[in-house]
């Protein structure tokens, strides 16, 4: 698993993926921070992180489009799947590499926290809760999009499908507040990756929602392993 993790992480930086992801993430993050905090003279980091949460659905496909679909297209998957490394090890290694890039991008937003601390006031506990929810939400999108990548034959197809599914997940959020049926609204709200992140962005350390995100990540990883294994039987 360590070999897969190291190669995947190197690959993000040898190709343009990590730079594009981090560049767009920080550029848009700067806009959100400039408008929401600097111009408004606000120390509200949680509001900033809530807005940043919408970036995941647009940007995680950049990290995941090559993860499996690219390997399949270039036939390098043959090297991995004929090696003595288990499918679980391959999937975990690739996920952790993607999560490392994602965490690296999040860590760079620490600059905004520093600026806020210098010119305003930062409540560490509240900020940590906000960041925990923000990272868990990003990792959940990463795991979902990696599953989609495992199901596609070409990176572009994987990126388009990932974007579509991410947007559909965002629509669930919109629908949950729009539908009048309370049961349907509650169900949609319960599965929404945005609603589940909301308590963190209110400064609450929500164990139930943290477990929900971890469960989504675990389920997606499991389904990715099953998808890759099923391909051996169907191809």
């Amino acid at each position, binding site marked *: 698993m360590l070999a897969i993790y190291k*190669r995947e992480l190197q690959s993000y930086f040898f*190709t343009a993926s990590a730079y594009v992801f981090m560049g767009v993430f920080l550029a848009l993050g700067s806009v959100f921070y400039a408008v929401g905090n600097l111009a408004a003279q606000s120390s509200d980091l949680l509001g900033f992180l809530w807005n940043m949460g919408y970036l995941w659905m647009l940007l995680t496909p950049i990290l995941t489009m090559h993860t499996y679909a690219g390997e399949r297209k270039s036939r*390098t998957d*043959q*090297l991995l799947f004929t090696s*003595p*490394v288990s499918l679980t090890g391959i999937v975990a290694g690739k996920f952790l590499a993607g999560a490392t890039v994602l965490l690296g991008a999040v860590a760079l937003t620490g600059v905004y926290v520093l600026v806020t601390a210098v010119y305003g006031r930062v409540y560490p506990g509240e900020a940590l809760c906000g960041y925990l929810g923000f990272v868990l939400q990003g990792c959940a999108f990463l795991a979902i999009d990696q599953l989609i990548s495992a199901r596609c034959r070409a990176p572009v197809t994987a990126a388009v499908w990932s974007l579509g599914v991410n947007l559909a997940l965002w629509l669930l959020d919109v629908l949950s507040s729009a539908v009048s049926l309370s049961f349907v609204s509650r169900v949609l709200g319960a599965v929404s990756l945005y609603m589940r992140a909301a308590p963190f962005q209110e400064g609450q350390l929500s164990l139930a929602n943290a477990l929900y995100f971890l469960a989504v990540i675990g389920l997606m990883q499991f389904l990715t392993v099953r998808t890759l294994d099923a391909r*051996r039987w169907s*191809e």
Partner: protein
Amino acid sequence: MITFSGITKRYGGTAAVSDLSFTVDRGETLGLLGQNGAGKTTALSIMTGYLAPSAGRVTIGGHDLMAEPRQAKRLLGYLPEVPPLYDEMTVRAALRFACELKLVVAADIPGHVAEIAEKTGLRDMLGRRVGNLSKGYRQRVGLAQALCGDPEVLVLDEPTSGLDPRQTAEFRQTLRQLAQGRTVVFSSHILSEVQALCSRVIILHHGRVVCDQNLKALQSAEGLRLRAEIRGDKKRLLPALRELPGVRSVTALPDTAPGVCSVLLDCLQPPEKALFDLLCGLHMPLIRLQEAQSSLEEIFLRLTAEG
């Protein structure tokens, strides 16, 4: 070393390979022959665990590939038809990664990479990016990756396809050296390559084994064919040759020089003494006598003929 027991692979209602059963002994070099679409790549993909069979069982070194994939795959080195290369990596990084995948101890990796690079002629290429290499060198990197972990079994899928004649000759030479002490299975539709490298051949046709024999035995089973050049009159010579004991048929070939008859003798047993006695009696000197073995190409074409 390798056993294939009743391997079948179906795609929907179509079987890519059907009921393949054979074993490959330790140290043997097996050539898998077949036309395009005969099932060679599917068979090799199943042999390396890349594909799962619809039915049947594969073992490598006694380990079931489905039940003990880790142990079985440690014994394998695989070079697919398209070498699995990461273009953005250097050759050294690619080989290091392949060593790590094959669970080579970290401290041994630099030495192991240097040794493999030496064997495959990549010593001067270690710092180059894989994406910038020529087709021949890319093939060598693919082979070097397959050798990482010093596997007992090498599986090569059409390893020389797309190489120019010089690269092909060099690659075959490297393969011949690497095959020493290893079990090698490779597929090809280049018959001369199989003849040059293999001790045994399996011919696949429509996903089924139509021939599984030792190459020498296969050729000798086809009978002994001799090409003779004799100075003399063809009208007297041919009927006399047909009367020779052990000669099944005599075919006149175009004359190689004025007054020199060239004939092809299809024999059940070596007729040298009888032939010599006959020619002495006829006062016709024998200029040349050489074995004209039934070529693999003929055997292959006959076994894979449609209808």
